[in-house]
């Protein structure tokens, strides 16, 4: 098997050293990489004929000659200040940069650092999970990342540990002169009854950047994890992100996905509720303008009884931007007493903006409660008039109502510094931003 020919695909060029023999990595990883590469070569890039990619075309990726980003010879400067007193890990083009990171006062026993290093030095932490949970067989970009990611982050939190400061993962894409592929990979393992908050933020990039990130998250029994992703890449950049979550008994995941930047953003979030009493709250907000295209695909699988899931995704679309929301709830046979809810609400600020919202329910158990709802609409003229009749001008009234629409998600963010930043990011998008900032 180890000597089998390396699957060929232009996007796999340069991966030979990772796929052919251990190359300094443990055997388990080389083996999984080869499977991933085979899977990717078999699948190829998705086309619109694929059900899951019907509304999001990536054919433009075929036209370029992509090369995987090398480690930056010089460290770029990071514009965004760290989030309060968060411990920060900075990943540049997929490579963890200790020189830009700041880790202070992390309790003993936590591993927060380079994934490539962890693979070699702490394989026992990594082996049970890495390239185990994220689906290789149907998502080519997940397979692509697995086949040839170079580095990323391992965050491993031992049982019972409560982290009182958030961990910030800042992903930065540099500008490149030729098409560059960044493959950051993150593995988060939250041990039994541990508690932590992680803020995952990506920024930078350009039209010549393809970021293909994969994050695997494991919540062991009783773990509580708040996980926020903020996608704020430059408007030309393509960012395809997959987040795969496995939850044990009585664990609680609170996820927020905020897309404010990026040219083409595809975010897949898949959660498997695999232990009774587990709960997942999945919230999202996408603010799009110009020609941005943002696709959120959610899959929540209830595989055991008595779990709850909540999905609330909201979109505010301006210009001729496009959004796709695909929310799938699967309730496996035997997953009785499931309580699953989904809501997708979209506000169109421009007549040229367009939303595709597709709920999908697959329910194989009979004693369950599942609800879903989706709306696409404009600002309520009655509300605009009500505000104007008290003296607010139309622009202020519309800004205020737009803010209020977003606030339901933003105000639910449980990391105060992030909530603050998101409030300001939303306000900055509104015509009466100053008025809204005074409100905050």
């Amino acid at each position, binding site marked *: 098997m180890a000597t089998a020919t390396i699957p060929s695909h232009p996007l796999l060029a340069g991966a030979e050293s990772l796929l052919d023999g251990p190359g300094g990595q443990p055997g388990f990883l080389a083996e999984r990489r080869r499977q991933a590469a085979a899977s990717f070569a078999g699948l190829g890039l998705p086309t619109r004929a694929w059900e899951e990619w019907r509304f999001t075309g990536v054919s433009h990726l075929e036209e370029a000659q992509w090369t995987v980003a090398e480690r930056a010879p010089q460290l770029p400067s990071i514009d965004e200040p760290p989030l309060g007193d968060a411990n920060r890990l900075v990943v540049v083009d997929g490579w963890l940069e200790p020189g830009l990171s700041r880790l202070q006062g992390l309790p003993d026993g936590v591993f927060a650092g380079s994934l490539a290093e962890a693979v070699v030095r702490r394989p026992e932490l990594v082996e049970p999970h890495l390239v185990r949970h994220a689906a290789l067989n149907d998502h080519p970009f997940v397979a692509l990342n697995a086949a040839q990611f170079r580095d990323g982050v391992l965050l491993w939190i031992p049982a019972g540990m409560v982290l009182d400061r958030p961990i910030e993962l800042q992903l930065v894409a540099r500008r490149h002169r030729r098409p560059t592929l960044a493959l950051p990979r993150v593995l988060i393992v939250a041990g039994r009854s541990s508690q932590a908050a992680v803020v995952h933020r990506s920024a930078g990039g350009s039209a010549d950047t393809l970021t293909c990130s994969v994050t695997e998250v494991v919540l062991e029994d009783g773990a509580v994890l708040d996980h926020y992703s903020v996608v704020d890449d430059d408007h030309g950049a393509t960012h395809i992100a997959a987040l795969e979550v496995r939850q044990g008994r009585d664990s609680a995941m609170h996820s927020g996905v905020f897309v404010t930047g990026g040219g083409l953003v595809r975010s897949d979030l898949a959660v498997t509720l695999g232990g009774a009493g587990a709960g997942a709250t999945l919230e999202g907000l996408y603010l799009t303008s110009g020609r941005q295209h943002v696709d959120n695909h959610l899959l929540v699988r209830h595989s055991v009884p008595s779990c709850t899931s909540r999905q609330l995704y909201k979109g505010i679309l301006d210009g001729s931007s496009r959004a796709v929301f695909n929310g799938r709830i699967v309730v496996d046979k035997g997953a009785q007493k499931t309580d699953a809810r989904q809501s997708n609400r979209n506000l169109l600020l421009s007549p040229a903006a367009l939303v595709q919202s597709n709920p999908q329910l697959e329910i194989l158990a009979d004693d369950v409660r599942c609800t879903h709802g989706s709306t696409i609409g404009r600002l309520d003229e009655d509300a605009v008039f009500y505000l104007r*009749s*008290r003296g607010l001008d*139309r622009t*202020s009234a519309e800004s205020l109502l737009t803010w209020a*629409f977003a606030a339901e998600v933003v105000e639910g963010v449980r990391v105060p510094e992030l909530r603050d930043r998101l409030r300001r990011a939303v306000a900055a998008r509104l015509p009466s931003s100053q008025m809204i900032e005074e*409100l905050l």
Partner: protein
Amino acid sequence: MKKETLLELKDLHCSIDGKEILKGIDLSVNAGEVHAIMGPNGSGKSTLAQVLAGREEYEITAGDVRYRGRDLIEVAAEERARQGLFLAFQYPVEIPGVSNAYFLRAALNAVRSHRGEPELDAIDFLKLVRERMQLVKLDEALLKRPVNDGFSGGEKKRNEIFHMAVLEPILAILDETDSGLDIDALKIVADGVNSLRGPERAFLVITHYQRLLNYIVPDFVHVLMDGRIVRSGGRELALHLESQGYEWLEPEPREAVAAGR
């Protein structure tokens, strides 16, 4: 000294989607007066109120609307509010995500800056707001809550009067502010309105019930039927309507209506 005419309607016609709803309204309201407008469901009372507040969906097809001597038809809703016009909505709109206090402060500052007054800082605003909340016995917790969101029917109506008390309009239109209020709340609302009555200010009170007019005593009562004012009189007209209903009112010749007061 002659009292200022605040509102003057001449032969006002209004349509929505090509359907005529107001079919020639004449009305004149002077400073210091309280006018009640009564009439059956669907007769056009709320339409009149919304048109006066500047709702653009209604098309004014004929007639004249003057506020303090100036043509109002082309004036935007927010501009009317800043010039002292206020509408208490029959159905106050719920606005999740915007706190009542914030909205009111933004509104007050818009009105104040139009009057050439400086914006109120947070402390002065809170002082004013606390005082005016007392007027309608509104729980202070409702300040922090989103506008009308989850308010009870009575709280919504009292909140409208509270907004009015803070904004201190010159001409206030109350669209069925009494509907859905129990007797205690009705008295509270009426007291709030009465405390704002004064020689500079006028009220247009839309109601179905004579009961309210026991507390807010009107100078004039008008009956609106099928888009026209068919009868005008003093407060005794309201009592008569209470016992007789509207059937006895045959539409009068227009001249008689115009001369009705």
